């Protein structure tokens, strides 16, 4: 049971991250190292 629960939590965590990425995605970001 524990591995299944762990997998569900992991999937949820990555889904939350993905949703936040889509919310914050502007297409205008700049990677800081490109300014060198």
């Amino acid at each position, binding site marked *: 049971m524990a591995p299944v629960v762990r997998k569900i939590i992991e999937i949820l965590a*990555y889904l939350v991250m993905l949703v936040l*990425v889509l919310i914050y995605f502007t297409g205008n*970001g*700049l*990677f*800081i190292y*490109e300014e060198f």
Partner: protein
Amino acid sequence: MWYLNMSSLLAIAGMAIVLGLTRFWPQNKRILLLVFNLCFIGVYSQKLAVFYIAYTLLNYAAFVWLAWLKTARFPSFLALIAANVACVTVLRLFAMDVWQHPWFDAVITLGLIYNVLKVIDALYFAYFIGKDAVVPIIDYANYVLFVPTFTSGPILKFRDFMADAKQPCRVDAQAAETSVKRIILGLFKKIVLVTWMTDLFDRVGAMELTTLHSLFLMVWFYILIYFDFSGYSDIAIGFGRLMGYNIPENFKRPFLSPTLTQYWRNWHATLGDWFRDHIFTFAARKNPSRLTAAGLSLLIMLLIGLWHGFSWLYVAWGLYHGLLMAGENLLSQSLVNKRKVSKAYFYGRCLLTQAFVTLAVIVYCPDQEMVLKIYRGLLHLPFL
């Protein structure tokens, strides 16, 4: 930055899917990737594509010539490296508007400081392996133009890339899952965390700064740039692996480095490895004296400073790191083995290393006025 553009992300993801669908064609990633790399760069900027095609062809010719050369190999090897360094230097001066010409602008310097290191690594390969260094031009071009790492690394190793090129792109379900998770994590760091952290950094930075403000900004910026750069590396590693190439790790628990020497093996590890392999090991060979090691450490950190940018702040940053590392070498303190010292000593050394790094890491901030403001604020003690 092409990872932060939706069309680019979809194009790279689409290419990974195409490679997955053509997994039973042994040449899939070599041929399809070259077409993809050229098209991607061409769509981004035709000028960039023309420059990189010429740059790749010239360097491939130099690679083959050096591999077959029988006499005056060493001076030729050095001359080819010098020519590459001179090319980058001149183009960067054009990009900085020190010199001006309508053909040259900042676009063609995109990724150049990374790609020149890759090209030099290939020259080392040709020099040491000689005429057995047979590499097809298609693999050489993919090495230089590889889209996932093109703009900002991690810096690929020529030998490893060529070994991967011999294998068809066959990504199994587990590797695909790991890579996709890595990409999501990287995007989360890069797009969400860095956005939140930059907002607070800008707000505090706009205030009149005291010592505490400056110290906060230094620590905050250190964490911010870690998420920024490690997030980028996560995305590049994830996409690279989906395309059938093992991309080296750039961050190997850098906050648990007990000395600066070890720190530079764990933070932006591919850069530290490149300078250690191509300058330190090449010049010092085996068992260098403490004085030689110290001198080379100082030279390497100055070069890394200049590699980051042609400014006095980066020269000062390189000198600072170089002198600290030279001190570690002279005092035989460059390596600490966790198993041979107490926990308190080990973590104390890690803390000291982080303190040294934090004091100078703000130099990476693109706004030089802000850097100077933070250093001035550091001296602005509350009781003065």
